[in-house]
């Protein structure tokens, strides 16, 4: 990371802190900074969308965006500056009080002290040089999803204009919450490579998310232990998959248990939170935050918005409702699921507060901007044929029987659903008010068993994850309450047994996720690092971005996430990897067949080229495997690139 990139990110934090100056809720320094970091990134990105549209994509345009965003945040910055100074002094005072003091930020610092270095480590392994001179992905997240994010970020960084069509399927609208990838693209003129841009911005947002998780727990549950434990339970969540680890240990032919345990730990043969057979929920870090970069913004917005609304319910400050509503209203471009969750939770809290009576009408200050500001983006993001992908489906990926449902959730989340339910029902764990506030999140849990809104049913996990995230804090509150009760008994036997029991529950909730995280941190994954771009593909990508027009359209094979044109060149293709295009709800099969026909020089190729506006035909190893004909293209195309195993023709 260059210092210019660091300065850019620091500017985003400052801009965001300025916007928090309009929030009439007393914040601590450790709350203002992460909220500011997220809001600042959103603000600079949204402003940049405008400056790029007017002046094109370049370093000066990015700088202009930062300056305009800074100008917009300046009134708030001037207003909040004295508060920040006071918050800093307060932070230092609290820090000196010792970690036992209820106001001490030490637990948060410890939480960050553990999670931040691990974040750096995981992200540093995201991309590596491959032995053959190409690029290797260090994790499934970067081998799969990040390839698409590279294409989205490259769509901005390697063009001179704003292109709101998707690079994955030429001619289609960019029906994807691309905000976080545009944010990544903004760091490219500051000196980051496109790959580094994803790593750096993911790190920036992940660093902010940890204190946001903590602030949610501390604000709603008023206990630091719940804030820390809830964050840990969520970040390292997993299901019963750790039993497979024990099976793997048992399968080692020789050695003591500890030897075999160590051997398997350092060479884990498989994942324990994901197999898309039994395990669909995945660990939140490795299955959501890492691969699905928009969640880094969306989860944070949901958490701090709910925390602000929770405070606003007490104070009745309209400004706090309005501030939260504006932030949520701008969220769809960054994470539509997060927008939906924050909005629906707000609606349900408003209903609880009877927003139709005079006192409850203050909720309109949240609901109106959260809806009105979001309308253009949501309208833009709606898939072209939503009715074609939405379907009612009882039971999600289970057989729908009660036993099947219980078994599925036990496998995927262990005792979590039971503990969450108990936490809401037992007043010793949560107050009635808090239980009522958190209860609506069960609608997400119920909802995923009723319908599949996306082409791939696995995407339902993107809804259920919110239930897991908010519930983690309720479960933490339950466990903390049990520890309190046990400690109060004063009997050694009860304390030991209770402590052991709670410890066992925590281990059962985090062991599978912990094992998968261990692999990701250690870098000893069964199939990774795996080459995601061969040296030939790197050269193709370089040629594409340096030698072709911004709006050029390419035809490539669609059998792999390794896509030199879209991911390394920033240009659109007729269809990229089939899985991505399918997931966007587009006609993936028709485009796939069209690409094959064009590559093979079928009689229909001419019409298809015209229909999709194809400028270049790429023929490499994957295209040849898909039936591409070099003979045809040697005859009827103009060879413009010929190196290694790749040839590129103009039709």
């Amino acid at each position: 990371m260059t210092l210019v990139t660091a300065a850019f990110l620091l500017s985003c934090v400052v801009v965001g802190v300025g916007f928090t100056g309009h929030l009439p809720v007393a914040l601590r320094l450790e709350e203002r900074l992460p909220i500011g970091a997220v809001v600042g990134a959103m603000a600079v990105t949204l402003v940049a969308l405008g400056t790029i549209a007017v002046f094109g994509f370049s370093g000066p345009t990015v700088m202009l965006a930062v300056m305009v965003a800074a100008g917009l945040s300046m009134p708030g910055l001037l207003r909040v500056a004295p508060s920040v100074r006071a918050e800093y002094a307060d932070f230092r005072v609290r820090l000196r009080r010792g970690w036992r003091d209820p106001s001490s930020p030490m637990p948060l610092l410890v939480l960050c002290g553990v999670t931040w270095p691990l974040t750096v480590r995981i992200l540093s392994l995201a991309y590596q040089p491959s032995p053959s001179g190409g690029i290797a992905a260090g994790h499934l997240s970067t081998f799969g999803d990040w390839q698409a994010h590279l294409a989205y970020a490259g769509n901005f960084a390697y063009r001179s204009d704003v292109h709101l069509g998707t690079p994955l399927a030429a001619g289609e609208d960019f029906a994807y919450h691309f905000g976080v990838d545009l944010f990544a693209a903004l760091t490219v003129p500051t000196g980051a490579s496109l790959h580094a841009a994803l790593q750096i911005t993911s790190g920036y947002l992940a660093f902010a998310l940890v204190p946001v998780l903590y602030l949610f727990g501390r604000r709603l549950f008023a206990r630091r232990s719940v804030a820390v434990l809830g964050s840990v339970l969520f970040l390292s969540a997993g299901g019963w998959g750790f039993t497979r680890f024990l099976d793997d240990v048992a399968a080692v032919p020789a050695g003591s248990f500890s030897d075999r345990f160590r051997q398997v730990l350092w060479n884990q043969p498989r994942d324990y939170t994901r197999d898309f057979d039994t395990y669909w929920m995945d660990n939140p870090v490795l299955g959501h935050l890492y691969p699905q970069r928009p969640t880094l913004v969306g989860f944070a917005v949901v958490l701090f918005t709910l925390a602000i609304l929770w405070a606003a319910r007490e104070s009745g400050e309209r400004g706090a409702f309005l501030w939260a509503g504006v932030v949520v209203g701008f969220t769809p471009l960054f994470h539509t699921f997060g927008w939906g969750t924050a909005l629906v939770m707000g609606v349900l809290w408003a209903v609880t507060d009877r927003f139709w009576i005079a006192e409850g009408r203050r909720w309109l200050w949240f609901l109106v901007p959260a809806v009105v500001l979001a309308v253009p983006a949501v309208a833009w993001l709606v898939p072209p044929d939503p009715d074609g992908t939405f379907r009612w489906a009882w039971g999600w990926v289970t057989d729908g029987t009660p036993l099947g449902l219980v078994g599925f959730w036990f496998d995927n989340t262990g005792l979590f659903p039971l503990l969450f339910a108990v936490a809401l029902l037992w007043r010793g764990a949560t107050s009635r008010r808090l239980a009522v506030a958190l209860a609506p999140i069960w609608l997400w849990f119920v909802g995923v068993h009723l319908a599949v809104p996306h082409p791939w049913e696995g995407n339902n996990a993107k809804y259920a994850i919110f239930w897991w995230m908010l519930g983690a804090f309720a479960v933490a509150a339950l466990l903390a309450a049990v520890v309190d009760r046990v400690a109060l008994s004063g009997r050694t036997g009860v304390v030991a047994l209770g402590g052991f029991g709670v410890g066992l529950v925590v281990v059962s909730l985090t062991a599978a996720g912990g094992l998968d995280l261990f692999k990701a941190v250690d870098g000893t994954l069964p199939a990774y690092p795996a080459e995601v771009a061969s040296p030939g593909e790197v050269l193709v990508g370089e040629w594409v971005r340096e030698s072709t027009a911004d709006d050029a359209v390419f035809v490539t094979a669609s059998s792999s996430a390794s896509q030199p044109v879209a991911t390394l060149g920033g240009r659109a293709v007729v269809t990229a990897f089939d899985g991505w295009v399918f997931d966007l709800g587009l006609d993936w099969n028709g485009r796939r067949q069209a690409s094959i026909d064009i590559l093979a020089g079928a009689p229909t190729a001419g019409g298809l080229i015209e229909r999709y506006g194809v400028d270049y035909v790429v023929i490499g190893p994957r295209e040849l495997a898909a039936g591409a004909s070099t003979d045809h293209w040697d005859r009827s195309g103009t060879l413009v690139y010929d190196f290694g195993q790749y040839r590129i023709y103009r039709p």
Partner: protein
Amino acid sequence: MTSVDTTAPEIETTVARNDRWLRNLLVALVLVGLVLRLVALGERALHHDESLDAWFSQRFYEGTYDGYDPVYHGPLRFYLTAGLYWFFGLSVASARLISVFAGTALIALPWFLRRQLGTIGTAMVAAILCFSPSFLYFSRFAREDALFACLSLTFVVVLFAHLDRPRTSTLAVLLLTLVAAWAVKESVFLLVMVVGSYLLVELAIELFDRSHLRIPPQAIVLVLAAASILAFALGEPIMVNLGWWGALLLGTVAVALLTARRAGGSFGATEIGAATLAPGWRGWVGALSAAATVFVVLFTVWLTNWAGSDTESTPHNAVIDGLVGGWDYWRSQQDVNRGGEPWFYYLFTIPAYEYVTVFLAGIGVVSELRGSTRIGRFALWSTVVSLGAYSYAGERMPWLVLHPLLPAVLLAGIGAQYLWTHRKSALAGSAAMLVVLGAVATGIAGFRVNYVDGEEPRELLSQAGQASPELAATVARLYRLDQIVQSEQGRPLKVLIDSADSAAWPYVFYVRDLADVLYADLGSATVDPTTDVVIVVDRNASAVAPAVAGWDATRQLHREWWVPSYTEGGVSGWLSWLTHRELWGDDEVGGVGETVYVSPDVTALETRAENRLASDRPSG
């Protein structure tokens, strides 16, 4: 009583205000220092020694480090750099990060000496450590010197804390710092010699003060310093000289003790004696046990290698090698005079860059002669003894500048505080003006050597083994060629690098990701005809000429240096160097040249690859 009651809170308030001001300044300096050290950190080509450190760290990171070998110095920095590789991946910048962090931490350490140095003195020390061309350069350099300097100052800070308020904890930290320094570099012996001799001198001063003799401290220091110079001027082998010197110091202390006893004094009644005895035997055993444990852990590669690295300089097991290997190796190197620099090397190199430090240190000496303080005696003694020891020792290199410079910076801080205290005197204004001018000149020199001419052999700090920028460009070309060959032929680029004249370094670290690289002395080795690239140093050029006839050849400098004829430059020569980096007389830049030969096949491929980049972008 009344006056005490009213002034005490005022003094406290002033101290608190000064502390607050100083703290804020130091925080700002640390942040600025960090930025200065991080800017373009990976851009300067690797120095030969840097590549060795980076490579050993890589070996530990990959689990193939054999253990401590004094030829390449202590293992701790390899562990630390490997840790940084773990976080940030392998790169030139991450290899230099430990120096960045150590050099930045160094800026904050004077805070703990603020009571001794004074507010202005502390601020000046921190500012010099932040902006000094030498400290900045070697805080961006992947050798251990910035780390050792940081540990040295930590040792001093803890030593003074222990003398002020002796506790078992401060003793333990002191010993642990010493072990950490030991595990970084053999310079720890010189550190012990400098600090140990100071403590003996301090003890002698205190004892004489308690005796009937009442000899002034300055006289004791001057007599001992003169006697020390005489001891080392005997021209005997270094161990004999050290023996004489030690006997002289111990003899002085013995005389002081005897005379003090006659006046009713004792070792335990002195401050150093009290600090030594305060932890008691239990405290000493505990602290020594902790230090010994850490020592064993560090030198046995975290308890995984008890046998040691089994090299010529480490014939024993890991623990014994750690204890004596460094000392034995250091002694054996005294006659080598690596670098070929004269004994007065530092007397030229330090003033060539450190104008403010030298000037203020001079004022610090005046301050010390006018009114002795413990920190002043320490700084003066350490500066003189360090300068003497490093000038006398058999290796004089630019990075070793930091060791005698560090106590001189403390002396400069004392000088700054003295100037501030006497700011109303007639000369103070002129002195302050000179400090400002010196700061500007230092800033320019620091900027030039750190950010513009980092590889320039005419810079005294970038001597001895600094790779040329062309070499770094060649490395980038090798990776590009590998990509091209892999892409076209599906096999890695085959590279042969000459190991004569130590020319394999820094390539070994640079080309770590290339799959097919061979190193051989091409004066005798033959070139495999399937080789794609041959890099050969000038003196072996004729030996490989037949094998590379008709290949694409690029001549470049591998590394360059300038060994000045220091005394021949005269005032005009040095002035012209100071302003334009021009050499004088017959002085010229030397270096090792090399030629990069690329086979015709690969050259053709490279041309094709570059041509295929012809733009297909519509014009207009």
